């Protein structure tokens, strides 16, 4: 497995970013009215921001200059100013709340669609991709994606404000507004330079931070090994190096921001004031300039530069979101779907007869793992597959369970092609007992019933009794309601295996598929497990993978697989008499003990 590439190591072009946004837009589409309303609200707020200084300008220019202005005028202006501000507050709220809601809905929707899609993927996908990396696609990446979506609003707000305040300056005094354009090249220079530096510095900083946290987590998990081998000091030194690197990266980031963000915008603002005062002042020497006009103009200049640092900062984060988007899209575009059934699947499995007819199966389309495999299991029979790792035992099960599609030949159940049954029927009638007994968070009974609410408590109990799991369950303080924590950590391997059996048997399958456990179980539990298995096989067709030959001596047919081919077949006695590979394996096992 390749080490997962860090999100900060990937670089996206502008075109990629556009592609990501277009790919994900459909998920935001159902919520478009939230976004449209929010954008309208942003427009209103920007307009009000232009209007407010204008009100004060009117007030100062027209009324404060005349000493006979009535007190009521002051009250009226105050009331108007208050009213307009109230309006602004309402729209400010709408803008942020609506946009935020839309973003949240879109995130949750994307995640749901992604999860649905993941469930349509075949087992191949899960065998090839570590659960951890799929997990971060579903959780963190979708979140990162829409955090950026929210940043988008801030940028939008800033841009609106920018345009509105420039427009206001232009209307107030076009000459000065034009003169202020002299800042434009510097502003662009700062933006460009900041983007270039920060994407590098910021990426490096985040990379170091994730390394740091990974190191801490790994060291805590591996503390026994570290302490036992007395490597504490070495690990500490290693950690200090990364810790220092992170701090240095952080300080570089702080310096970059201090150089190019707020202080610089404030400097521009200050120099802008010089231009404004200079031009108004010069003008006033031969014409009248009103006090309110100067005030309003300087307010607009403030409004102009205030959002700049924020916009620049947010733009720098854009990269993360698009990388997350690319990863989410990659999964959505993945078409390694679970094997499909025919267009109108039908039929019911009643007998449990299984027939493999010249089945050829390959994972990569090049190297066949199963070659022309043929065998028949009559209802109630047990067929055992033996052979070394890689001989094709697990692949046979993968093909039979429809986890993977096979390429040639046929698998028949009750003489009907397996691809013609509804997949639900296959899942219902073929009970696979997995090697590792996976436990889900919940309680004992939910682990037997799983999500199937049609199964009654009585059925759960009956299943547990049948496999003799009831013995230890009854001893638990809460019996069937005993909580099961993550991975069933409070249960022994043997107990988990018994619960796993109960989970299979509760659905009463016609066919039993056993991937024999090699788990480390103590001998006494082992006896119980073997007894339970024998009971389960009774009256069911069984396909069993066996590691221990002793457990399948009574099988009706034993297939010895080697490199995807059956090299020997027969009953236990026949195979021993054959004096071939099976005999060799059997002898070796016997000798060990």
């Amino acid at each position, binding site marked *: 497995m390749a080490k997962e590439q860090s999100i900060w190591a990937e670089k996206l072009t502008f075109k990629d970013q556009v592609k990501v946004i277009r790919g994900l837009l459909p998920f935001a589409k159902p919520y478009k009215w939230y976004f449209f309303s929010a954008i309208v609200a942003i427009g209103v707020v920007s307009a009000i921001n232009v209007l407010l200084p204008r009100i004060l300008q009117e*007030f100062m220019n027209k009324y404060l200059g005349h000493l006979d202005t009535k007190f009521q005028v002051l009250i009226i202006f*105050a009331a108007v100013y208050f009213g307009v*501000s*109230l309006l602004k*507050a309402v729209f*400010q709220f709408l803008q*942020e*709340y609506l946009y935020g809601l839309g973003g*949240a*809905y879109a995130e949750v929707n994307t*995640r749901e669609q992604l*999860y649905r899609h993941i469930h349509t993927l075949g087992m191949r996908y899960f065998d090839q991709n570590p*659960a951890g990396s799929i997990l971060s696609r579903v*959780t963190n990446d979708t979140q990162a994606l829409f955090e950026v979506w929210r940043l988008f609003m801030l940028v939008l707000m800033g841009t609106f404000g920018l345009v509105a305040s420039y427009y206001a300056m232009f209307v107030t005094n076009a000459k000065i507004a034009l003169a202020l354009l002299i800042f434009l090249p510097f502003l662009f220079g700062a933006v460009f330079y900041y983007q270039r530096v920060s994407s590098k510095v910021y990426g490096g900083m985040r990379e170091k931070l994730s390394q740091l*946290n990974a190191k*801490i987590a790994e*060291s*805590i*998990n*591996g*503390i026994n090994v*570290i302490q*036992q*081998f*007395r*490597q*504490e*000091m070495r690990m*500490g030194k290693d950690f200090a190096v990364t810790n220092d690197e992170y701090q240095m990266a952080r*300080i570089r980031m*702080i310096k970059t921001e*201090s150089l190019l963000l707020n*202080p610089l915008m*404030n*400097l521009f603002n*200050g120099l802008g*004031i*010089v231009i404004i*005062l200079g031009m108004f002042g010069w003008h*006033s*020497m031969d014409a009248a300039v009103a*006090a309110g006009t100067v*005030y309003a103009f*300087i307010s607009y200049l403030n409004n102009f530069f205030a959002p700049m640092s924020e916009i620049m900062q947010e733009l720098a984060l854009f990269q993360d979101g698009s990388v997350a988007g690319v990863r989410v899209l990659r999964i959505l575009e993945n078409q390694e779907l*679970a094997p499909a059934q025919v267009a109108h699947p039908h039929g019911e499995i009643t007998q449990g007869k299984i027939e493999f007819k010249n089945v050829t199966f390959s994972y990569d389309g090049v190297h066949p793992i199963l070659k022309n495999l043929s065998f028949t299991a009559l209802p109630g029979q047990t067929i055992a597959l033996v052979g*070394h790792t890689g001989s094709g035992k697990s692949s046979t099960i993968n093909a039979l369970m429809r986890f993977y599609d096979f390429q040639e030949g046929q698998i028949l159940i009750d003489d009907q092609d397996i691809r013609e049954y509804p997949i639900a029927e296959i*899942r*219902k009638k073929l009970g*696979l007992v997995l090697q590792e007994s*996976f436990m889900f968070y919940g309680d004992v009974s939910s682990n037997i019933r799983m999500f199937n609410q049609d199964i009654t408590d009585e059925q759960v109990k009956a299943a547990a009794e049948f496999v003799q799991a009831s013995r230890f369950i009854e001893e638990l303080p809460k019996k069937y309601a005993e909580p099961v924590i993550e991975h069933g950590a409070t249960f022994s391997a043997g107990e988990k295996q018994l619960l796993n059996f109960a*989970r299979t048997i509760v659905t009463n399958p016609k066919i039993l598929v056993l991937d024999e456990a*090699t788990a*480390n179980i*103590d*001998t006494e539990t*082992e006896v119980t497990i073997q007894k339970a298995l024998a009971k389960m096989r009774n009256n069911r067709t069984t396909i069993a993978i066996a*590691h*221990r030959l*002793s457990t399948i001596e009574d099988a009706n047919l034993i297939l010895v697989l080697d490199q995807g081919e059956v090299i020997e077949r027969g009953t236990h006695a026949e195979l021993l008499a054959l004096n071939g590979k099976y005999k060799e394996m059997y002898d070796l096992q016997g000798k*060990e003990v």
Partner: protein
Amino acid sequence: MDIFRKLTWFFKEQKAMYIRGLLALMMTAFLNMIPPFLIGYTVNQIVAHSLTPMKLALILLGVGAEAVTLYAFRYIWAVHIWGGATYLERKLRQRLYMHFMHMDTKFYQTYRTGDLMTRATNDLIQIRQVAGMGILTLVDSLTTGTVTIITMAFVVDWRLTLVAILPFPLLAVMSIKLGHRMHNAFGDQQRAFSKLSDKVQESLSGMKAIKTLGQEAQDIEDFNAHNKALMQAYKKVEFVGALYDPLTTMIIVLAYVATIIYGGWLVLHQQINIGQLVSFIAYLSMLIWPMFAIGQLFNIIERGNASYDRVMNILDNETHIKEAENPVMLPAQGDLHFAIKQFQYPDDAEIALQDIDVTIKAGHTLGIVGQVGAGKTSLLKLLLRQYDNYEGVITLNGEDIRQFPQDTYLRSIGYVPQEGFLFSTSIKENIRFARPDASDEQVHAAAQKAAFHDDIMNMPDGYETEVGEHGISLSGGQRQRLAIARALLINPEILILDDSLSAVDARTEAAILAVLKRDRANKTTIISAHRMSSVMNAENIIVFDHGQIKERGTHADLLAKNGWYAMIYQQQQHGMDATIQGGEA
């Protein structure tokens, strides 16, 4: 404010940095007062038509020079104050890490990985906030706030100032209140998110089980319930978050209303002039940030204080495994003798071990068998000094193992547990974990002894193969053999295999045991196992039951006794648990 006192040690340490930063910050606050004044002055001059080119030039020079100076001061305080905070973060992180390195088993039973991670991530950020944002807001709010108000009173009018700043404390109150609500809402969101994350994690790991039972639709339904819960939490966060700006607007407008009415009245009555009013409005907008920040300061302090206490709480834990005061300087080798009267795990009433008396001659092998929970691992834990609180003594070379320096003692032991932790790096680095300077030849030799070399050579990247997180890309048997190779590389005086051959097939197990027999002729080996085949060749075998030794002797002795050992051995031989053939989990 308690937290600032608690952090005094740090501020003292970084005195120079903070003094420079804070001086620059205060200078910024003072210099900030000049532009509004000059703007007001210019406006008056313009209105009165008394502006001369000379005056204008001086004003412009003043504003320009001041803007450039402010840029310098702003840069200085930002770099020093934000930068200073990173020193605190680094320092505490390193201290935490080293603390983790040295803590004992009890500590790791008390605190879960998630708890410890939170200390090293979120809590550190909260503390960093105190040393950065906290210091900034404290000093800036006080200076800018005071300076601005005084300037307003002197330059404009003290009565107007008094009236106009009345609504400002509301800003602080709002900022505290919303900060609390936001914190709670955000906490709910985090919890909903981590529940969702747990759910997805579980489903992904159990994907085969879900597919087997055909429960995809039900699983999606369950997922949706979690996803919807997250949406509800988001709604709350968005709502609280959307309140900040509108409420600020409404509070500030009160000050403007007061200024329009009272300020306008003062202008009309010629108590102040219009230029002063313009300056006043400019000063007013400068007060918004300091008042808002004071509110934030309370939240930063509150959270920082809690986080600091949590971190200190962790750091206050002491390991129960102490270095001996006068350690013996003998080499850690020779005969090993257990004479344990009794051992109980801390906070556990049950007796884990009782009356253990065993001697292993140097160079011999001890086999330990027994059911799960019978005491096999407990005994090994004591030998590994994970617990020191037992009655009795374990001696090596005649000396109590607790009297050896840990460095000498633990370095002479190679312990291989059933699931040995692997680091997410290459196979090579994992093998030479305990001896990072080992040569490739030494690494290969160790892998060969553990019957792992051939497997490695069959991998495309050979020894450079990445094992993945927790060694996920290797099979169970490969992981066990890698852990064995790691222990063999240091050629330990005492090698402990704690059920570490369980996932290895019978043939490989036999090969490894043969190599151990040959190579470790003068060194002690302890093998704990479920399969009798692992221990049957040991010079001495002990059978544990409920913390006591029930049977002991050689393989032949024990068979003759016809007890538990003989019974299990027969069972295993007769195939109820024949050795695993060819399959690795």
